């Protein structure tokens, strides 16, 4: 299971990469593996504003529909439109090419609720 150390994680199996311009969000290697071949990604609108925990995107495999909950409150500043035509990037490259959206965090303290790679791995081991 690939878990880059420079990312933060959620118990809903999303990852967050904090960048200067904002925070990128995607799904973890574990999540993409559980989901199977991704065939469709529904992206949020740019400039839309969300509270942490809201379902902002949807990822669908042949069999399953999975909501993506934003781990952070804020405004969407960019979405990965290449996923419209190449949704399988989520399976093939979940942490780099498979980012789903970037948002401008409104509440910096929410970052403290996220898990480190080690904490997320421990959480997966418990599951």
């Amino acid at each position: 299971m690939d878990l880059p150390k420079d990312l933060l994680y959620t118990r809903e199996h999303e990852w967050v990469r904090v960048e200067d311009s904002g925070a990128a969000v995607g799904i973890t290697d574990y999540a993409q593996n559980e989901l199977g071949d991704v065939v469709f990604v529904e992206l949020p609108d740019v400039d839309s504003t969300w509270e942490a925990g809201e379902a902002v995107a949807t990822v669908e495999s042949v069999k399953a529909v999975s909501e993506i909950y934003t781990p952070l409150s804020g405004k969407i500043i960019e979405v990965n439109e290449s996923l419209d035509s190449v949704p399988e990037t989520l399976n093939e490259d979940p942490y780099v090419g498979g980012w789903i959206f970037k948002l401008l965090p409104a509440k910096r303290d929410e970052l403290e609720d996220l898990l480190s790679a080690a904490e997320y791995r421990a959480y997966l081991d418990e599951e």
Partner: protein
Amino acid sequence: MTLKKTAFHTIHQELGARMVPFAGWDLPVQFGGAMPEHRAVREALGVFDVSHMGELEISGPDALLLVQKVTCNDAAKLADAQAQYSAFLTPEGTFIDDVVIYRLAAERFLICVNAANREKDFRWVRGQSEGRVEVADRSDDFVQLAVQGPRAQAVLQKLTEIDLAKLSFYHCAEGMVADTETLISRTGYTGEDGFEIYFSPRHAEKVWTRLFEAGEEEGIQPAGLAARNTLRLEVRYALYGNDIDETTTPLEAGLGWIVKLDKDDFIGKQALLEQKKAGVGRKLTGFEMVDRGIARDHYPVFMNGKVSGNVTSGSYCPSIEKAVGLTYLPAESSAVGTELEVEIRGRHLKARVVPTPFYKRPKS
């Protein structure tokens, strides 16, 4: 409730299958992944454990009489070792179950029924029996493997002396496969060439092992319920409980071809004669998504702003690379090209009626 396990359960677990509850059974939904399993069946060979399916045996001098009474297709046309797709209907002409009937001998029929309907079917058929006939639930005597795909014949031929090239579609043979007594039929639920093999649970491990050894070079792959569903949806095979049930008739479901209204009385005949005379009001209709989105089972369908029904089956389908589905539409509004909308997570997305089956096997 404890889920029932098939005789292949341990094998599935060892292969790392993801198991799900289905009709009271713990069954593999996928092994490696729904998409590669689907493709394996279309391009080479996939094997499904369908041991959950039930089998009823009807035997005795009046066996044919009973089969004719409780099914809508004409079983009198069957020769020995021939199979037929048919249905048990209510007096109202709606589906109790859809079934495959095998005539094993003039006075012996085996009927393969859906797992969820097994007890209901058995009670129904037994309750209708009269004369010199015996109805037995033989489900526990059989496991079943569906060996499906263009390489099925070549691989199975390595394991049997039955000449499979001469076993035609919807015909069966009783004989040895992998040194095991079986009933093998050229039938399936995938739209591909293939076979379904019934045999005793005692030989489950032996047959599975021999089959996978024989198929290794051909790319044999275990396949689960997810691939089974997308394969059958692409070729528009009905799924009981979704597309057909006790509220729908074969005429509405596009299965008029299994209803033989010219045969002697059968349960449901009168109702279907009347429905045919009055005109079939709604039709199970195939659609594809126009807007981006995947219509899934039970999503509401709208026509001209009003709810017309639900998606009875809907999925992304790998061989056609499209999201398609089935829904009942008013007959007068079911023509190819008709526009409709599917509500997906609160949004109305455009879809349109297309011809079915969605997928056609390329001529080889």
